């Protein structure tokens, strides 16, 4: 049990802190609007040029070859400095780990640098109008044609789909297959003929959602990631990243708690609020400590099935509690548009996206506890 940073890790943290303090933009509009998205892209490209966009990646793809510990430290510093949510996250945090694991050398060489440099912006193509939690029931299909595939169907609730350039997602490539068999993972440029994107507003009013229609959209064979018919297992690698540590590093929540405590210190607090604030601090700390234990165990080959669902249940509920507490402190000001009311509305999506928490509870009870499926 050693919680100390090595000298190299500490130097890495200080270098990140120094750069972020001078460069993080403050007061950017939401990245889930058209105007905001453009400003966020500028920030992403600045990060990339200074090689802070993807610190854990190999240097050849624009990273620094940082360890997981260094990545966690970078994330802490990023959110402590007030860095905005990453509009590149679905690419760099979700697709990239999958590309590193399943992609061909050519796919990696072509896609990763453009993704890191925010030249290609990736969105996810999982949900369909009739397939949400029951993802394996999806109907969008891919039909084999000469040199590639023709895609047909519809994806929806695609976050930032209206601003992105590319989509990764699952299509049924074997028409006779059922459930999670016969699916293939495709990488699709959204400007391909036959692809139509329509943005629509989320609960918080931003046009952060899109539905994506495929009408005989052609993609070449090279657009398949991880092999024809292997889509389900490839997708599960992505969703594991989404639920677990990769997408939601502890630095996000420890930084939110620090801002919450700043807000609280300006106000008169009752006993219940004081206890709630202590609980908020403990919970964010508990998430941080849990992830340190998790990384230790995974590196030692002691990862457990379904563990990333524990992360997802915890951070999603935690994020709501933190924002509820902030709104409680704000009282009548809580209804005003602002970072806390915005963050509260966003936090409400946490138990829904990346697999609803109901699905996560099934996973915890079946894979971690071994309860029977049926």
């Amino acid at each position, binding site marked *: *049990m050693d919680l100390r940073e090595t000298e190299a890790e500490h130097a890495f943290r200080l270098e990140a802190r120094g750069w972020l303090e001078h460069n993080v933009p403050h007061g950017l509009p939401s990245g889930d609007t058209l105007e905001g998205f453009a400003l966020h892209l500028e920030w992403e490209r600045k990060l990339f040029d200074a090689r802070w966009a993807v610190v854990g990646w190999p240097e050849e793809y624009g990273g620094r070859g940082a360890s997981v510990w260094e990545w966690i430290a970078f994330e802490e510093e990023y959110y402590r400095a007030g860095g905005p949510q990453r509009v590149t996250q679905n690419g760099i945090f979700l697709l990239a780990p999958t590309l590193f694991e399943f992609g061909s050398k050519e796919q990696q060489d072509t896609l990763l640098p453009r993704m890191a440099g925010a030249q290609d912006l990736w969105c996810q193509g999982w949900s369909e109008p009739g397939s949400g939690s029951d993802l394996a029931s999806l109907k969008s299909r891919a039909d084999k044609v000469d040199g590639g595939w023709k895609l047909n169907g519809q994806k929806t609730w695609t976050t930032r789909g209206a601003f992105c350039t590319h989509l990764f997602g699952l299509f049924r490539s074997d028409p006779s297959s059922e459930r999670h068999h016969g699916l293939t993972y495709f990488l699709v440029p959204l400007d391909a003929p036959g692809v139509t994107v329509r943005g629509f507003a989320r609960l918080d009013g931003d046009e952060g959602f899109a539905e994506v229609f495929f009408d005989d959209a052609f993609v070449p064979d090279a657009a398949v990631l991880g092999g024809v018919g292997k889509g389900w297992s490839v997708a599960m690698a992505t969703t594991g990243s989404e639920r677990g540590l990769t997408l939601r590093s502890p630095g996000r929540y420890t930084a939110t708690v620090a801002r919450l405590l700043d807000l609280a210190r300006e106000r008169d607090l009752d006993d219940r609020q004081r206890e709630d604030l202590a609980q908020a601090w403990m919970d964010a700390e*508990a998430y941080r400590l849990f992830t340190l234990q998790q990384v230790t165990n995974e590196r030692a080959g002691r990862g457990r099935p379904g563990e990333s669902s524990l992360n997802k249940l915890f951070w999603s509920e935690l994020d709501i509690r933190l924002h509820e507490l902030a709104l409680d402190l704000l009282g009548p000001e809580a209804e005003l548009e602002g970072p806390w009311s915005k963050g509260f509305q966003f936090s409400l999506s946490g138990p829904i996206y990346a697999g609803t928490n109901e699905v996560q509870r099934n996973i915890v009870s079946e894979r971690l506890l071994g309860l029977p499926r049926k």
Partner: protein
Amino acid sequence: MYFGLPDDALALREGLREVLATACTPAVIRAAWDGDPCDALWKTLGEFGVLGLLVPEERGGLGLDELSFVAAMEESGWHGVPGPLVETVAYLPTLELPADGSARIAVHRSNPVPHAAVATHVIGATAQQPGLRAETVDRSRHAAHVPGEPAPDSPASLLATLGTAAFLLGLARRQLDLTVSYVKDRKQFGVPIGTFQAIKHPLADAVVGTEFAWPAVLRAARSLIDADPLATVHVSMAKALASDAAYRMSRVCLQAHGAMGYTVEYDLHLFAKRTWAMAKDWGTASEHRKTIARELL
């Protein structure tokens, strides 16, 4: 960076598990309920060395650290060891007493004092003869009134607080294990009740609670070893999280058992009632949150 128990703590826990599997069965806990001070069990604990695990080797102890301590207390919680185990292990290094099981230390924090009726020594008592016994819901607690002033906060009281947090998570793990096997076997509507989301989801939520409390216990142990200036806060955090998580687990496990759990013939209540009591030992979750709030705000 390495976040986990070191090898010596893992080995201690493994050894203790084997010993307690035969030395601390539910029948032993039930004997404690009937008034048995469980001398044989305590002698075994002394021989194994767990009682003196924090006592330096030159004084006959194992000379292990706080990480081994929490590992041993968690395992002891799973087995539901009756008596003032946490207090004895926490306070023995400060006293010139044998670690062979002949000395059993209770600590007066409020009256009546848990375990005072079976303790050989009561910290914070002006007379070592226990006074009037008090009936407790968990009858293995053997509480009694003692004369004197409550024992003050000290390094040993911090240890006892942390050990109680670890013990609670062991109790929670035992209740979870009992429940997982029960809901796999128990059939209603023609299927195991463990297939129902109404059973699965509350259990999953309770597991989230205990899973996120354990790293806080480990970190607090590390902070005590390092004499970290925030060690008191870290111990409070561990106890607050463990108290709430273990209590939550006891509620969910009882509910998942239906009427089966609501009997004294089935073992679940032995661990549930200990959980209720120990969640309040050494500061309630609310008290520890208040301590932390004073530091933060």
